[in-house]
């Protein structure tokens, strides 16, 4: 998977979509709902369902990251599956609220 910054991916098993904010170090598999995600422009594989072990959901506007590989993605469409790399669940980045300045 070429997970370069700005690249967009969709879930194979639900409606979730993400955009890569920070690329991972090295080759990883980005998954949603327990199945590999596919590039936004590609066809989804058929007949797959959300794995109950990876079903805590993706939310629009939330950032998810993996400490070990450094990957960080932003949810751009919500879905039922949750994100993982190489089977390891991504963590939610708790953003520190900043006062509006523009």
């Amino acid at each position: 998977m070429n997970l370069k910054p700005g690249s967009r991916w969709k879930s194979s098993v639900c409606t979730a979509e993400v955009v890569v904010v920070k690329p991972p170090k090295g080759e990883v598999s980005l998954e949603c709902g327990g199945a590999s995600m596919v590039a936004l422009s590609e066809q989804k594989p058929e007949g797959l369902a959300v794995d109950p072990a990876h079903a805590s959901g993706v939310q629009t506007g939330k950032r998810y990251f993996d400490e070990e590989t450094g990957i960080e993605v932003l949810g751009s469409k919500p879905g039922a599956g949750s994100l993982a790399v190489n089977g390891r669940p991504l963590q939610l980045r708790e953003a520190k609220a900043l006062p509006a300045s523009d």
Partner: protein
Amino acid sequence: MHTSLLLEMGAEAFPERVAIGTLENGVTYAGLLERARGAAGWFNTQHLDTVVFIGLNGPALSAAVFGSALAGKPFAPLNYRLSDPDLRKLLARTAPSVAIVDDDMIERVRGVEGVTLLSRTDFAAACRHVDYQTAELAEVDPDIAVLLFTSGTTGEPKAAVLRHRHLTSYVISTVEFMGAGEEEAALVSVPPYHIASISAVLTGVYSGRRAVYLPSFTPETWVDVAAFEKVTHAMVVPTMLGRILEVLEKRNERLPHLRALSYGGGRMPQPTIEHALKLLPQVEFVNAYGLTETSSTISVLGPEDHRMAITSDDPAVRRRLGSVGKPLPSLEVEIRGPEGEKLGPGQAGEVYVRGEQVAGEYLHRKAIQDDGWFPTNDAGWLDEEGYLYLEGRLDDVIVRGGENISPGEIEDVLRGHPGVADVAVLGVPDDRWGERVAAVVAPREPAPSVEELSEWVRARLRSTKTPETWEFRPELPYNETGKLLRRVLKQELAEAASRPRSD
């Protein structure tokens, strides 16, 4: 990541929410995305490298910013306050381009080679045209999002380059997606060619805060619109705030809906912000420091900092009101000396910044270093707690006998004198000290004497910071964007100093 995705996410999640304008007649997220698609569809029928915008603030600005992004073309808002020849010269540099121009400005820019003009009225029609809205949009790689011509006080304006990745990284690292309440509204009054206006378009749609545009700033209309539209948030530059406060006092208006006021883009005189804090106790004040080259804000003095500073008896806490707060957690700030060495707390040098929102690039020239650090050309220092204090542009710092003296600090003190309407402090060549401190004062009647002003500064600062050369003028020279022409003044004073004295 594309800036247009920021709008698409909002339109997908909250299509019916109002993005721009009044709650009753505003443009919804879905409506704004449709218009941006219409704009992009029309741009794609043209031969262009750049989308130019010459005009006042308004909903068309958002449609043009996102439309350019969807079409994969850089968006370049130009300063309509420039003289006609300067504006045309700048416009010629953007060719081949399409320029969206306010109807009453179009005659000023007609006939520039390689530039297709589109009046604002015709642009609005193209945005609403269903054929353009539904035209197929090719996938484009995110590259340059915005070109901003910096209003330098000397030489040709430089085109600062902001790429999609810089702007989106700024937005997603500082703003919570749809974090604003439905009742929140931001009043945008900075002109479209200012970085704060571009970032307001982007952070506005991402935060879900409705944007209300003030096409052209006067303090009276700002207060009128803020009151009528129940505005909760606004960003102003320091000179605007002083004038707004005068109107509020005169009308005995306190804007009960206003919750947050951020300011930046120049040095805030201490008396003005202290006055504002007293006059509007319900408002949270935010001082934001940023540059065009850094995609807007890089450090913030928040509401709690303001409250602590104004109520504190500790001079080290109280002086923070004159700082620009702490760097954003998503980036790094360092102070460096003339040899590039990192300096410690309390030591003044050049402000360096590194982070994903930092572009530090001009067309045909990179100013950012290979390791990602960008020298801002601003002089400043960090205190023990990490608060950043600015001393003005690096070139403006006065070096007197090896001591670095900040003009801003002396100007602040002089502005506090009732007989001073405006003042500029600068260094002039001096045989003994290298440079000496000079002050050019625009006095109020009755004009104060040199002795009186010298004593005023000496009592508040120290003798080395007391100007040794004084000049009085009816007014100071500014360029069309309101920046003081320091170099012009400096040159005039230097020439005057080198002439043999007649007495």
